[in-house]
C-alpha cells in the first residue's frame, strides 16, 4: 500500500483551472520530484496536499486513511484538518522562520505546543520539555548548525535559515516531508548546502515530495519524477528515465530549455 495516494485532484482559482485530474501515489521511503515551468500548478498541488488550499475535486489518502475527500465535508472540518496536517511537513521557498525566536526555539515551538495536548503533560512537564529541546539540538546537529542554536533568523544566511526550516519541519516527525522550491530564494553559492541536506534525508529513506527547478538534483536524488504543465501531469515515472529519456514531446521541450541554460 502506498503511503500517499492522491486521486483526481482538481482546483480552480475563480474561473481558472490550475489543477486538472491529478493522480499519483508515493511509496514509503521514496522521494518524488515535481518539475515543470512556473505556473504549471506544482506549488498549488503541494499546498493542496498540506491543506493550505482546498481542492474542488478529489481525494487524498495517507496510509489507507482518507484525509481529504472533496465530496465529504466531514473530512474538511478545521479542527480535524489541523491534526491531519501533521502527516505532512512543508518547507517553504521563503523559509518563513519565526523572526522573534532563535533557531532552536523555531524548531521546538510547535512540539512544545503539541505536547501540551498530551494527557500526561502536567505530570511529566519538565521531562517532556527537556526531551523536546534535546531532539531540537540533535536536529540542528544533523543540519550542521549546532553552533547556531541561539541565533535569530536575521543573523543566519539564507542557506542556514532554510536548514533550520527543514529541522523545524522534521521535529514533528511527518510521514511525508514536502519541499516547495527550497533553493529558489537562495544565492547560487548557498543552494549546495541545502541540497546536500535533502540528499542525506533521501539516503535515510525519508519519504519526500520536492517541487524543484534543479533538474540534476531531481534526477540524482528522486526515485520518481512528475512533470507538470498547465495544471496536468504530462509525464510521470522513474526519475532517471523521465529526465534523460522523456517520452512526451512537452517534457522534452521543457528539459531542453533547462539544459540550454
Amino acid at each position, binding site marked *: 500500500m502506498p503511503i500517499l495516494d492522491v486521486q483526481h485532484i482538481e482546483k480552480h482559482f475563480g474561473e481558472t483551472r490550475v489543477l486538472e485530474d491529478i493522480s499519483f501515489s508515493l511509496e514509503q521511503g521514496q522521494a518524488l520530484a515535481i518539475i515543470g515551468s512556473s505556473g504549471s500548478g506544482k506549488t498549488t498541488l503541494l499546498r493542496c496536499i498540506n491543506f493550505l488550499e482546498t481542492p474542488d475535486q478529489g481525494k487524498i489518502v495517507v496510509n489507507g486513511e482518507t484525509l481529504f475527500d472533496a465530496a465529504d465535508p466531514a473530512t474538511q472540518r478545521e479542527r480535524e484538518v489541523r491534526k491531519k496536517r501533521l502527516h505532512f511537513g512543508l518547507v517553504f521557498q521563503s523559509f518563513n522562520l519565526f523572526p522573534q525566536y532563535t533557531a532552536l526555539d523555531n524548531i521546538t515551538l*510547535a512540539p512544545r505546543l503539541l505536547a501540551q495536548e498530551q494527557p500526561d503533560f502536567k505530570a511529566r512537564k519538565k521531562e517532556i520539555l527537556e526531551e523536546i529541546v534535546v531532539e531540537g539540538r540533535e536536529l540542528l546537529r544533523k543540519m550542521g548548525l549546532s553552533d547556531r542554536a541561539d541565533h535569530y533568523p536575521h543573523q543566519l544566511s539564507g542557506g542556514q535559515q532554510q536548514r533550520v526550516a527543514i529541522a523545524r519541519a522534521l521535529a514533528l516527525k511527518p510521514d511525508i516531508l514536502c519541499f516547495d522550491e527550497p533553493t529558489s530564494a537562495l544565492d547560487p553559492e548557498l543552494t549546495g548546502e541545502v541540497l546536500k541536506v535533502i540528499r542525506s534525508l533521501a539516503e535515510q529513506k525519508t519519504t519526500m515530495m520536492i517541487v524543484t527547478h534543479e533538474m540534476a538534483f531531481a534526477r540524482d536524488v528522486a526515485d520518481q519524477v512528475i512533470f507538470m504543465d498547465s495544471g496536468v501531469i504530462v509525464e510521470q515515472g522513474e526519475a532517471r528515465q523521465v529526465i534523460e529519456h522523456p517520452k512526451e514531446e512537452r517534457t522534452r521541450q521543457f528539459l531542453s530549455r533547462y539544459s540550454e541554460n
Partner: protein
Amino acid sequence: MLLSVSFTLLEGLVVTLELFALTLLFALPLGLIISFGSMSRWLPLRAVVKTIVWIVRGTPLMLQIMVVFFGPGLLFGLPLLPRFTAAVVTFVINYACYFSEIFRGGIQSVPRGQQEAGLVLGMTRSQIFFKVTLLQVIKRIVPPMGNEFITLVKDTALVRVISVYEITWMGETYIKQGMIWPLFYTAVFYLLVNGILTLLFGWFERKMDYFK
C-alpha cells in the same frame, strides 16, 4: 504665587493623566477587537465596523465629546453622564477607532507565510496569533503608537468643552487675573509628560531590536 499656581496645575494634571490612562486601558483592547471586525470575512460585520470607524475618525473629537455628554439628555431625556465619565467614554471610542487601524495595518503587514508556517506545524489559529503574529505586530506598531499616545496627551485638553477641569483649564483661569506665564508653565507639564513617553517608546523600540 508660584507655589499656588503649581498646586492648581498639578490638580489639573492629575485629571489629565487619569483621562489619558483610562483611555489607554480601555481603548487598546477595544481597538484590537475593532480591528478584527474590520478584517472579518463576513461582509456585513466588516461594513458596519468600517462605517463606525469612518464616522468616528471623520468628525471632530470635540464635537463627539459634546454629543456624548449632551446627546442622551436632549435626545431621550436621559440623565446626564458625569462629565468625566462622558469624557472617558468619548475618548475610548475615538482612540479605539484610531488604534484599530494601526492594529489592522500591523497585522496585515505580517507576511502570510508566517501564518502558513504555523498552520503546517499544527498550531491553532489562536496559538498562531499569540505565539507568532502578535509580537511581530507589536514591533511594527511601536512608532505609530508613539504618535497616538503623544496626541492623546494633548487631546485631553478638549474636555474643557464640557467643563472637566484638566490642566489647560486650570492654566487658563489665571488669564482672567492678567497672567500669561501660568500657560507657559502648563506647557512645561505637557512637554515633561511627552518627553517621558518619547523616552519610553525609544527604549521599547530598542528592546524590540533583537529581531527583524
